[in-house]
């Protein structure tokens, strides 16, 4: 054990006793409810409206599932990197370039082959955007958080320049690509009553489930977890740590790009700079709250989907600004991380 850990353990026993965690949770709830009351919205009613607005009818559930899909895939992207001990803050940028690449390919090649190629292009673009961060982390030791933040900004600016210039739809006033033809839409796979389930959600489910199996059974998955748990021990076990980091980050970027291409092909059908509207950042919360297995991504993506969809409702009905959902998100991230810390330090 590192000396610092021994010291900190002795001193911060108040954390171990658990009430500090409760203090965090109670403070968060008080702040949220307080902010409801401050704008004259009764907290109980507002919470109900949030649930009703996201799950209250078939149309609303369809809308919530539309939110869940990108969150699930982008969450899987963050999760993969996280398991290797890397923070991929760059999913926002990978989502954006993936979406643009998919839109461009789908516009050139309509129909099902185009869809497959568009998804491949989106993943390639996302992976390529993550590659510098991956290589710098693996071979130069530069912190992946900083590089991915910088690449996010580059991705946002360059895609904006592209859709304002050469890739702009000729008949459009705003910076956006043309709409892809209906033959390139991702089809709905299921209609439960009036609830529409897009094949995008199926893709997300397959990604998360595939990740679960691969991490559990695959050799690569084992190596990745070993590197994430302890890179030095992994190196002595004969694992090529650099290669694992390079691959984990690049594939994480590719899945981020996949999320963007599904968003374009499945839901929005064209690209504009607002495509992501923060899914890449929400994804970090999804992955953190998901816990230690990819299966946890399903409930946490659903939770975030409900917050996103219901947040719009309470803005309209209760005049609570939508920003409050980001405050909730931030607090959930903190609480989830605080719980996980307790696990790491005191269960092992």
């Amino acid at each position: 054990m590192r000396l610092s850990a021994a010291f900190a353990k002795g001193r911060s026993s108040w954390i171990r006793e658990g009430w500090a965690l409760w203090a965090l949770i109670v403070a968060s709830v008080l702040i949220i409810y307080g902010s409801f009351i401050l704008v004259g919205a009764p907290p109980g009613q507002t919470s109900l409206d949030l649930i009703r607005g996201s799950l209250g009818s078939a149309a609303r559930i369809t809308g919530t599932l539309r939110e869940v899909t990108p969150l699930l895939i982008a969450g899987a992207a963050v999760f993969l990197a996280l398991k290797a001990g890397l923070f991929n803050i760059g999913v926002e940028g990978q989502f954006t370039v993936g979406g643009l690449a998919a839109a461009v390919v789908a516009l050139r090649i309509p129909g099902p082959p185009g869809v497959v190629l568009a998804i491949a292009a989106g993943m390639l673009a996302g992976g390529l955007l993550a590659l510098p961060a991956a290589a710098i982390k693996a071979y130069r030791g530069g912190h992946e958080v900083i590089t991915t933040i910088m690449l996010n900004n580059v991705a946002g600016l360059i895609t904006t320049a592209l859709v304002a210039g050469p890739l702009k739809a000729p008949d459009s006033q705003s910076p956006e690509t043309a709409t892809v033809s209906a033959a390139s839409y991702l089809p709905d796979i299921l209609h439960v009553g009036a609830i529409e389930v897009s094949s995008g959600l199926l893709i997300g489910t397959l990604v998360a489930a595939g990740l679960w199996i691969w991490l559990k059974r695959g050799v690569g998955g084992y190596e990745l977890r070993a590197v994430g748990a302890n890179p030095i021990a992994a190196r002595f076990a004969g694992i090529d740590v650099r290669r694992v980091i390079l691959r984990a980050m690049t594939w994480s970027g590719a899945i981020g790009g996949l999320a963007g291409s599904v968003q374009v092909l499945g839901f929005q059908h064209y690209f504009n700079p607002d495509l992501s509207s923060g899914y890449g950042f929400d994804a970090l919360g999804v992955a953190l709250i998901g816990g230690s297995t990819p299966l946890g991504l399903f409930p946490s993506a659903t939770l975030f989907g409900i917050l996103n969809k219901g947040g719009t409702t309470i803005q309209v009905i209760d005049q609570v600004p939508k920003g409050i959902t980001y405050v909730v998100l931030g607090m959930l991230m903190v609480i989830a991380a605080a719980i996980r810390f307790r696990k790491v330090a005191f269960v092992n």
Partner: protein
Amino acid sequence: MSMLPIAKSLALGTIAWSAPLVLAAMGGFTSERSGIINIALEGKMLTAACAGFVCSMVWSNPYLPVLAAIGSATLLSLLHWLLTQKYRLDHVVSGMAINAIAAGGTNYLNNRFVSIGTSQIQVLPMTALWAIAYSLPFCLFLYSRYTRGGLRLFAVGNDPDKSRLLGVQPQRVRLLGLVATGVFTGLAGALLFTSAGQFTEGMTAGKGFIALAALIIGGWRPLHALAACLAFGFFQAVQLQLQGTKLAGADIPAQVFTSLPYIITVVALAGFLGKSKAPAGLGRL
């Protein structure tokens, strides 16, 4: 067109653009040198600008809004300290959470408590804030080199374990470092709403991250970071100057210039711009 007015407007543009970057970068300096990764500079600036502007609508006094800006950013900084040092959260998670809370919280305040088309607000003169911004790196340089507190800051950031053995308490030093971060990012936020005369959502527009980039390119050294901030501000001023004009016959989109700081940072992190040494204990307990 003669060259003199262009040079003058470039210089002024650089000073105006770089000032908030310098303040935020110095906020990043005191935090990261004490070993705390701080990607929440953006959120702290944004919150400060919002709190400052809301207060300037309530009180017609030039000083109180600046105090409110500093206070709100310091509050978030203290939250960062509590989460990273007491709850021992990962610094990146804490930073992301604070950015999310800041973005959401300012949206909330702006939508419900900022009335559109407000009257003129009373503000401090820009030159006063600029003077603080541009003298700060020199003060911090001298402080970190020649004073006990400054040396302790570096010691804790480089090796918290050894500092402990020498009787320096890392958590206390970091508390002071983060309070300084709050004050400096608060001033940066004050500068933003002062120069704009209003608050708009997301008005920091990535300045917190550019400041972090400047800090990294400057090798976590105050004077080098100042130089990097001035360079970034100069890029921006050139871009504003060139807007609408063609360069070598081609229409270069503004975004190409705007993305330069970020690209340069990635190149610097790849180690192509000489070896820049991060504080060795960055992110450790």
